[in-house]
């Protein structure tokens, strides 16, 4: 525990002291502390790969959207060569935002303040009064472009980092890439967004949502209890200590990334329940009976079989990855939802949790679908996903109203001394036939996977 380099807060508390790795506790003060927040900005948000959006949001040359990396606004744009660039939305002249709209199309971004102009790749075009050398002669033009982040695409998802030394994104995803490939890489056409994202402000620390995203299974039973009460999650016995189907499955985690793979048999029986014995079916038959969101045509199903390995098909048929995160601030949700008419709708929801200070974050929510899913199915998926996730989602509206309480609690003199506990330990346990990818925790969803989130946070914060 004697780590000299671990940062120290003004009151003498070392970052290291916020954790008890043995008892699996984290100080609640982490959920509101401007000093810790500042350290997070440096040690996490300027160091790791961050998700900014999806390539389908900016399909044409010159298209751009404005997003966040930590509290920095960035311009995400596509240039004439079809390459995607991420540049700081701060004018190097005197600090004005270069883009004031949140999306649009432009081959030249001209700062409205004194007119310096930049290309979609961030490079400096010039200043007005070229002959008079308005931009001076001290710096060459090459030095006057927007600050640029490194960019990497993952199945169309746009990631960027300020860290020039960072290993490729694959390193950050680790073995979990195997599962993310299942979620995002099933078809040749790939995914697309179903519209511009929802954005809302939540008066809470970003980690309230960040750590929950990493496989907090237990809150499903209580915070989302109404979903059982209205029959969306299958039935629940009143005694709560009986076998609870939706809690069964396989949690997988590594490097702060975690996913809950929920038993497909359970989903099948509770939502479709045709009386058929799902477990008797072959892997491919299972996927045909319970296809992932949008895989509704023969063609798409064939593509999925072609692109995924037999191991990935196996995971998908036994317990597809459904809920989880990507470290640090991405939340993924893939839902099978029953429609009022008895059929099955489903959709993909992706959130980023963007810190805006120690007690505020902006929640950005995208809804995605396979690009080649027929349009009329997309319309159903879009509506079902919006009714389930995001701003008004029947599931997620309970989450977003809970997080602010934790941050307020963390402001109290005694509240901040409380701890977050992750002591429901199941231990590693890999079912027969399940691939040896990441840490595997089969059975009832406990705290094992979620603890990985804090281990990763701890590692970065004490470096």
């Amino acid at each position: 525990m004697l780590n000299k380099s671990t940062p120290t807060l003004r009151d003498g508390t070392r970052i290291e002291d916020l954790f008890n790795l043995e008892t699996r506790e984290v100080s609640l003060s982490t959920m509101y502390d401007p000093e810790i927040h500042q350290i997070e900005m440096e040690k996490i948000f300027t160091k790791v790969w961050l998700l900014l959006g999806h390539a389908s949001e900016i399909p044409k040359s010159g298209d751009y959207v404005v997003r966040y990396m930590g509290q920095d606004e960035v311009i995400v744009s596509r240039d004439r060569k079809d390459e995607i660039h991420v540049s700081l939305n701060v004018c190097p002249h005197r600090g004005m935002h270069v883009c004031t709209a949140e999306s649009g199309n432009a081959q030249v971004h001209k700062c409205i303040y004194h007119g310096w102009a930049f290309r979609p790749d961030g490079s400096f075009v010039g200043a007005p009064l070229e002959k008079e050398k308005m931009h001076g002669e001290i710096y060459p033009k090459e030095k006057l472009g927007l600050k640029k982040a490194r960019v990497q695409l993952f199945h169309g998802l746009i990631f960027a980092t300020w860290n020039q030394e960072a290993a490729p994104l694959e390193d950050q995803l680790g073995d979990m890439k195997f599962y993310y490939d299942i979620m995002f890489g099933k078809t040749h056409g790939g995914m697309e967004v179903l519209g511009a994202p929802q954005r809302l402000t939540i008066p809470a620390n970003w980690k309230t949502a960040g750590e929950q995203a990493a496989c907090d299974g237990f809150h499903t039973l209580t915070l989302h209890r109404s979903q059982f009460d209205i029959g969306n999650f299958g039935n629940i016995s009143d005694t709560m200590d009986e076998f609870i189907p939706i809690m069964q499955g396989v949690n997988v985690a590594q490097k702060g990334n975690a996913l809950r793979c929920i038993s497909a048999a359970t989903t099948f029986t509770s939502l479709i329940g045709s009386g058929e014995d799902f477990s008797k079916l072959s892997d491919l038959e299972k996927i045909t009976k319970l296809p992932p969101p949008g895989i509704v045509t023969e063609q798409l199903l064939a593509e999925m079989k072609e692109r995924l390995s037999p191991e990935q098909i196996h995971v998908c048929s036994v317990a597809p990855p459904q809920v989880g995160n990507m470290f640090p601030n991405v939340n993924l949700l893939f839902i099978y939802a029953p429609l009022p008419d008895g059929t099955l709708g489903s959709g993909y929801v992706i959130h980023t949790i963007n810190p805006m200070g120690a007690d505020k974050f902006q929640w950005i929510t995208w809804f995605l679908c396979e690009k080649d899913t027929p349009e009329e199915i997309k319309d159903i998926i879009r509506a079902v996903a919006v009714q389930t996730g995001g701003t008004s989602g029947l599931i997620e509206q309970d989450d977003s109203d809970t997080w602010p309480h934790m941050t307020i609690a963390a402001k109290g003199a005694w509240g901040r001394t409380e701890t977050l506990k992750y002591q429901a330990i199941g231990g590693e346990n890999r079912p027969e036939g399940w691939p040896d990818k990441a840490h595997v925790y089969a059975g009832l969803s406990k705290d094992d996977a979620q603890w990985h989130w804090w281990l990763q946070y701890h590692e970065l914060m004490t470096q």
Partner: protein
Amino acid sequence: MNNTAEKVAPFEIPPINLPKPTDSITHYQIQQFLHLDAYLLDHNMLAEWLNILAPDLRYFVPIRQTRERKDRDKEFSTKLGHMDDNFQSIAMRVHRLVNTGTAWSEDPASRVRRFVTNVSVWETDVLGEYDVTSYLLLTRNRFYQDDYHLLSAERIDRIRRKGESFELVSREVRMDQSVLGMPNLAIFL
């Protein structure tokens, strides 16, 4: 005497191009209907509120983006919203709120008031159906807050005569925020 002063503008002023509003009795009746709508919601009479919704209801709160003035026609998403509901899904929301006792996003319930003003009513091609716009100022207070979450919007409704009263056929709520300032829309607008 004629006022001969010239109206000087640096460009040609276009005419106001709005259809003629409906008669004052219909206007008054529809205004009363919008008051009823707000009353039921503000007093948490959600189950009763379902009575005034049409079975073919479309309820949509589009995403709004900050765009340059030249792109203003692209401000509102025509496809994706913060809410996208029909009668069945609205009824499910109400069922969860009033019958489960576990709808935590609204339990304890928010204290909400809906101020509805600037009502305009136009006839449509369909007899007994009206296009109605109104302004909404909504205040929402929860828990310990000493201030309010505010939401202002224009509502574009289609309202249909039904017996002595009316029913809501469609509602599009055009919010004035591109980033919603409250943690959810667990309430109706």
